[in-house]
Every structure is written in C-alpha cells, then in structure tokens.
C-alpha cells in the first residue's frame, strides 16, 4: 500500500527520525494558519508547499514550491490545490491534488552548505535480507544515478539475526563524506530509519533527499513509503492511512469484490483465474493482434457473482471491444463456471460486445456445451490455442 509523504513522515517521527515541522491542509486559508504555527515552533522564514499525491517527480511537475512569505504560502497553496499534477509516474492523465503539506523551509543559510543525499531501505530479493541503499547524489532521480554513475550508489545489507550494527552506520556516514556533528547525526538517522522500516512492516522507505542542513542536522526532507499489504493486519492505524481517492475507481471496486484488477489501455478485456495465467492471457491477446484492456484475476472461485462483478468493471471501459474469459478449472468445475458465466451474462444484460469463454479442466466438455446451448452471443473454446484464434477473429 502506498501512503502520502506526510503520513510516511508521521511514521518516521514515531521512530525518532528527524523531519521538518509540517502540517497537511486542504485550503489556502488553512495553509496560512499552518505556516504561522510552524514559524512559532521553528522560527523559519521560508516554507515548502508540497502537493500530496502518490507519485514521484512532483517538483518537476510544479507541485512543490518554496514560499518566501505568508502571501506566497497562500498563493502557492491556491495554485497547487485542485491542480491536475502530471509527473513521469502519474501517466499523461495526471492526478488531482486534494491536500498540500506546509513545511518549515530547511534550506536556510548557516555556517555550512546544505547538502542532499539519497537513502532507501528495501528487501534484497536475491538474499532475502533488507538493504540500505544510499548515495551522495541526493535530490535526483535515482534511476538516472544508477545508469550514469553506478559507482556512487552504495548498499549495506542487514543481517536479520543481529540487526543493524554500529560499523555499518559508520561506514554509511563515512561514504557520504561526513564528519563532526553531521557524522554523528547521520549514524543516528540511519538507525532510526531502519527501525521505522522494520517496525512498520514496510516494503520501501525512500528518503530523497536526506538533507544535511547548514547547521549540520540530518533531516528526512521527503518520504516515499510503501507498506506490506500482508502485514497491515498488525497495524490497524496504518491501514487507515489508505487514500482511495489516489487509486483507480475501478480498481477500488474490484477490491471490494475480492478481485485483483489493474486497468490498462487496450481493447480486449480479460478475466482469468490466477495471476500468472492472467498475465499469460494478456500476452495471448497481444499475440493475437489485440491489446489487453486490463489485468483481472478472479482468484480461486470463479462463480456467477465474481464473474458478474468482473463483467461490470470491464464494461465500464468504452474502449473494450471484446472480452476473453480464461478459466483453468482445477478443483473448481467448468460446468459450474459456465453456469456462472451464463447467469452473470443474463444478469448484466445488454452486453454489446463479443465474449469468448475458454474453460478447461474438470468437466470442460459439459461447460462448453452449456455455453453453446445458452443462445447467448458467446464463443466457447477449450484449448488456449482455440481461444487465441477466436480473439484473432474477433479483433479483425
């Protein structure tokens, strides 16, 4: 589950990671109020106004501004709230901004120069252990750093038996070129960040930039956080952080029916049992000359209810010109699935586009007969190749 920057920072603060003073607001007036409060606490003269959406690249898209006065805070909040923010991660349609985070400006002048670093904590799938990945090149797109200057990205793997050790935090601070107070602050920062990651059951904490301020404090200036869905049952307070306005409405509806749906931009919808077979079905659609309109895994039980929900979600997309239902009946019987498809078809009513149903497994012949006799405008198939041929026919 993705959460907003301000929510990620709240988790960081719980575990002792230093973050800028900040408040999330939904109107320009509240933004000014928040800015005044922050000034009282932090004594700052500048503020950051940051759009809160679940996507990176907000600054480049105009979603992050530095305000030099309360008037500017108000103006920027007004500009950003309600805007459709387009970044390289939102897709061309962009995302509407409903909330802005007002923060203390942290790039203030002082004895030293502010400096930006990159740091993330995530699982190394090859070893099954967590790693801290960090770089001197902060504030930039880390993929670009990985491509151009891979030697500037460092990795520190944590042994789960003993946890993070002092030699590791020292190594990180040395590799980042720090000394004195900033060095000490960085070692504390790393320990707290790792603790936050572990204790929140996160799958990613990405802090870009980690800021060394002009007076040698180390702060998380940004926070991109993903939590492990499988562990949310242990964190009911984090589960409440879910913001469904950030998700595709069709995907939210699918979740309510226990369906796993992802919208794509093609012309052939599909409904499949099992994630791997669903991806393979999308590939088959492409090979047959169509383009998959979605990924939809109906899970282990493909019955009339789930198939009907699937039909309704897929049919919302006007670009869909055909639907392929691909069920490999293992323990679930194909004749039951076929009856479910027929019932769902009738219950939805008025389906104007061709539907191809491929049922294979237990009682597949009976299932095919049931579909063929239903009198519906439904093509039936048993083998995957037959289904592919039917898609080809329908698409052309």
């Amino acid at each position, binding site marked *: 589950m993705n959460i907003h920057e301000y929510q990620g920072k709240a988790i960081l603060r719980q575990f002792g990671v230093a973050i800028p003073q900040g408040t999330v607001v939904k109107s320009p007036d509240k933004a000014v109020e928040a800015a005044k409060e922050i000034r009282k606490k932090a004594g700052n003269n500048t503020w950051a106004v940051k759009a809160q959406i679940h996507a990176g690249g907000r600054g480049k898209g105009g979603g992050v501004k530095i305000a030099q006065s309360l008037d500017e805070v108000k103006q920027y909040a007004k500009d950003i709230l309600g805007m459709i923010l387009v970044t390289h991660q939102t897709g061309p349609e962009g995302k509407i901004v409903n909330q802005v985070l007002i923060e203390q400006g942290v790039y203030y002048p002082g004895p030293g120069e502010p400096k930006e670093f990159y740091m993330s904590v995530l*699982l190394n799938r090859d070893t099954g252990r967590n790693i801290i990945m960090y770089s001197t090149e902060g504030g930039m797109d880390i993929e670009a750093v990985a491509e151009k200057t891979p030697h500037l990205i460092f990795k520190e793997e944590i042994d789960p038996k003993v946890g993070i050790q002092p030699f590791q935090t020292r190594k990180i601070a040395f590799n980042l070129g720090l000394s004195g107070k900033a060095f000490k602050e960085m070692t504390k920062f790393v320990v707290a960040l790792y603790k936050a990651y572990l204790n929140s059951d996160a799958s990613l904490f990405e802090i870009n930039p980690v800021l060394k301020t002009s007076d040698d404090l180390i702060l998380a200036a940004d926070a991109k956080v993903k939590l492990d869905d499988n562990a949310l049952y242990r964190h009911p307070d984090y589960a409440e952080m879910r913001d469904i306005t950030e998700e595709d409405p069709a995907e939210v509806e699918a979740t309510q029916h226990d369906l796993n749906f992802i919208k*794509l931009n093609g012309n052939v919808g599909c409904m499949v049992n099992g994630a*791997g077979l669903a991806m393979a079905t999308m*590939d088959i659609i492409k090979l047959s000359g169509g*383009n998959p309109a979605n990924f939809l895994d109906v899970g282990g039980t493909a019955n009339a209810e789930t198939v009907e929900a699937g039909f309704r979600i897929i049919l919302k997309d006007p670009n869909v010109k055909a639907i392929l239902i691909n069920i490999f009946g293992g323990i679930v019987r194909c004749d039951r699935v076929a009856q479910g498809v027929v019932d769902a078809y009738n219950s939805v009513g008025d389906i104007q586009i061709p539907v191809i149903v491929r049922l294979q497994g237990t009682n597949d012949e009976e299932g095919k007969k049931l579909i063929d006799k239903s009198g519906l405008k439904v093509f039936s198939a048993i083998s995957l190749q037959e289904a592919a041929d039917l898609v080809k026919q329908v698409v052309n």
Partner: protein
Amino acid sequence: MSILVNKDSKVLVQGFTGSEGTFHASQMIEYGTHVVGGVTPGKGGQTHLDKPVFNTVEEAVRKTGANVSVVFVPPAFAADAIMEAADAGIKVIITITEGIPTSDMVKVNEYLKNKDVHMVGPNCPGVITPGEAKVGIMPGFIHKKGSIGIVSRSGTLTYEAVDQITKAGLGQSTCIGVGGDPIIGTSILKAIQLFMKDPETEGIIMIGEIGGNMEADAANWIRENGTKPVVGFVAGMTAPKGRRMGHAGAIIGGKDDTAAAKIKIMQECGIHVVESPADIGKRMKEVLYQNK
C-alpha cells in the same frame, strides 16, 4: 526417482483441521498420497479424516515418522509453523499459505539457512509426483506419470503447462510451483538443479514471470551445467512497469527483470523459449524429438 516427494513420502498436514487443510488433505488422500496425520495446536489426540491429530510437529514426527509437511496455516501463524517443521527435522516443507508478511519470511529464510531442508513456497500450489504423491492444491487428474519436470512461479499457468504436456502424450516426472512471493524457499534454479540430477526427468519446462532475477540465475546456470533440454515461457510481456500483478513478486523494477529481458537471457543460454503460452507442450515434444 522424481524429486522432493514420491510414494514413500510420509506427509504431515499443518493446519489440518481448518477448512483449507481439511479440503485439500482429503483431496490428497483421495489421490493416494500417504498422509500420516496432521498438526493443530490444542487439538492433539483427536482424529480427523481418519488420521491422528497432534499438538506439535515434534510429536507427530516422533509417532508417525513424517518426513514431508504441507502448511495450510493462516498467514499470521504460518512462519512459525514452517520453523516448527524445520526444527522437528522435516526434510521437505511445502507452504501453500498466501499472504505471509515479508518481514516474517525474512526471519524464516534466515532460520532455514544451513539446515538440511527444502522449503517450497509460500504462496504456491505445491509439489506433485504423478501417480505417487500430490502435496498441494493442484488438480490431480490433469497429471500423468512421465519424464518432463515442470517448475513454475504460478498456479493455474502451471496447470496449463501440465495439461499441454499430458495432451502431448509426454507426462510429468514432478511438478513444482515455487510460489509468487518476494522471498521463497526453493528458487527456480534449485528446482532445475534437482531435475538435472533426476534420472527420470528427460526434459524440463521452466515458467517464469516478470520481476526478480530468478529466471536469469537459472538460465546462466543452465548454460554452464545443463544436460537436458529446457523449454521456457515468461508471462508478462504486456505488463506495465511498476505495477503489482497479483503476485507481490511480480513487480517490474530494474531494466533486467522485464519479460523481454528475461526471454533474451534465457535464449542466449540455450533455453527453447516459446512466445505463446499455448505452444509449451508442442515445443517440448519437438525438442525431445530433435534430441533423440
């Protein structure tokens, strides 16, 4: 031969009396798997499906000689169940449970290191040696005893491959679903190494998907050490970048874990990669024929 499970496997069911455990254990027994009993803490001493129920895996192993365990325990308790089985000396642990927190699996992974145990899964359909033992949730009837080893990251897509192999008249030595989670006990590479050593296996089918390096690792090993033909398929050519496609493991991250990148590496390593999942069985038959 075959690998991991066979007619001599004495199978213990963890989470035996729950609804999943009950349903699939009875299917396994019906298939002919030698199920010796089950474990449900607090229900020891009872009889379920005509088999004894034990409180601990240790007791179950002591009294039945179980050497294989299949885990249907709910996600919150599954990691504990896997470690309990390993501690009790079970040699093959097959974890079906879906939805185990990744941080729990980090601990399990560490716990199993340097122990003489094969853990398959989690979030997998299990392992079947046709005609001998079905340890998992796959439909038994689509399988047929034969000489093709199948290893796959997905459930129903494995059944698809199995069905094609059966219809091509070949049959399977053993089929392993390794699971779709970010941390799994048996990688594709480990499964392929076992198949290469198994005298009953003549050809191998490897079904991958987007995300991670498992297919590339296996392919590189095959290039150096492979002695049997391997047919491959990678699901997710059309998957968009950065999205989670059902399996938590199936997120395209770096540039080398797209389907296209994996297919390229597999081809370079001499694996016969099919573009369409409908061609898996046909291709295996052709390749075997060419080799003879």
